[in-house]
């Protein structure tokens, strides 16, 4: 049991504080997308499938966003009608790379590894994007309709309880995470 306690302390302490700030920012960006983006991207995204993937690739590679906090952003974009393939490109390229990791790969490995790293991520993300679009077309699925459906089975009281508990945890850990992030930046720049 002390091991379990240690694990949960790690998850709801260290891990949560790592994610807290980018997660909150991700939720706000998602809210902003919901508000600002045109009501219907579907027509544009269907006509320019490849372009929309390239845009998401270009946005995802330098952006510092973790897997969890990129999810609401992708969900908001899908709700607006972005093709799921382009959303997946963002979900893959976003968390895997950012300006800091690009620099780190060059340092830990070498320039050649960096070229392989970036080009393989770009190629694989785009290939997976096409594959996902194809799956949706093949199965005659419409992603817009299904977003959020999974959570409709959760009673509102439970949702609200979850939100309150998470907010308290985020509040406590957000401060710690913010401090650590500043330290991390200082360390990275020191090199």
């Amino acid at each position, binding site marked *: 049991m002390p091991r379990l306690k240690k694990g949960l302390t790690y998850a709801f302490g260290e*891990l949560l504080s790592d994610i807290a700030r980018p997660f909150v920012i991700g939720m706000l960006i998602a809210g902003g997308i*919901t508000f600002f983006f045109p009501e219907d991207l579907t027509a544009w995204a269907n006509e320019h499938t490849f372009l929309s993937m390239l845009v998401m690739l270009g946005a995802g590679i330098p952006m510092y966003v973790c897997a969890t906090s990129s*999810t609401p952003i992708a969900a908001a974009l899908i709700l607006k009608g972005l093709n799921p393939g382009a959303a997946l490109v963002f979900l893959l390229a976003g968390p*895997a790379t950012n300006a*800091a990791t690009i620099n780190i790969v060059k340092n830990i490995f070498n320039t050649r590894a960096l070229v392989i790293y970036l080009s393989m991520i770009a190629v694989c993300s785009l290939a997976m994007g096409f594959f996902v679009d194809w799956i949706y077309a093949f199965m005659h*699925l419409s992603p817009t309709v299904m*977003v959020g459906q999974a959570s409709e089975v959760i009673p509102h009281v439970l949702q609200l309880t979850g939100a309150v508990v998470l907010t308290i945890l985020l509040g406590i850990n957000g401060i710690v995470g913010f401090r650590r992030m500043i330290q991390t930046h200082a360390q990275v720049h020191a090199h």
Partner: protein
Amino acid sequence: MEKTVDIVYDILAASWDLYLDVAIFMLFGFFIAGLLYVFFKADQIKRHLGTGKIRPVFLSALFGIPLPLCSCGVVPVAASLKKQGANSGAALSFMIATPESGVDSIAVSWAMLDPVMTVLRPVAGFITAVSTGIAQNFFGSETPDKTKTDLIKEPGG
């Protein structure tokens, strides 16, 4: 001025709606991450990797997918993997697989995206990681750049 307040309010309301959908799944994801931490130590992965150009790449991607580390949190682990003697392909594979997906983001994907995306996301992350790792082991080189800073010594993030 009043209009700005309205816009901010609308954005916050939209964010809150998403947050309600996702909060309980986040808590669940963190709980699983806690269990994972108990049974599975990221810094002991090297012992299980084995040797070769392909096998360690597969295994480190497999280990990396459920681990809930972000792209900066994974750096010290990937660096120590390499330091412990894993080849560059395995370390790169781990460095890609880990941040692209984790138990927490799978839980959140289930809440916010649809089942297809929830499944495909870790699968696509796995394929990306393995392809990159194998490409590195076959086409990359292990020798560092000439101007080498000792970043491995002091892992950040």
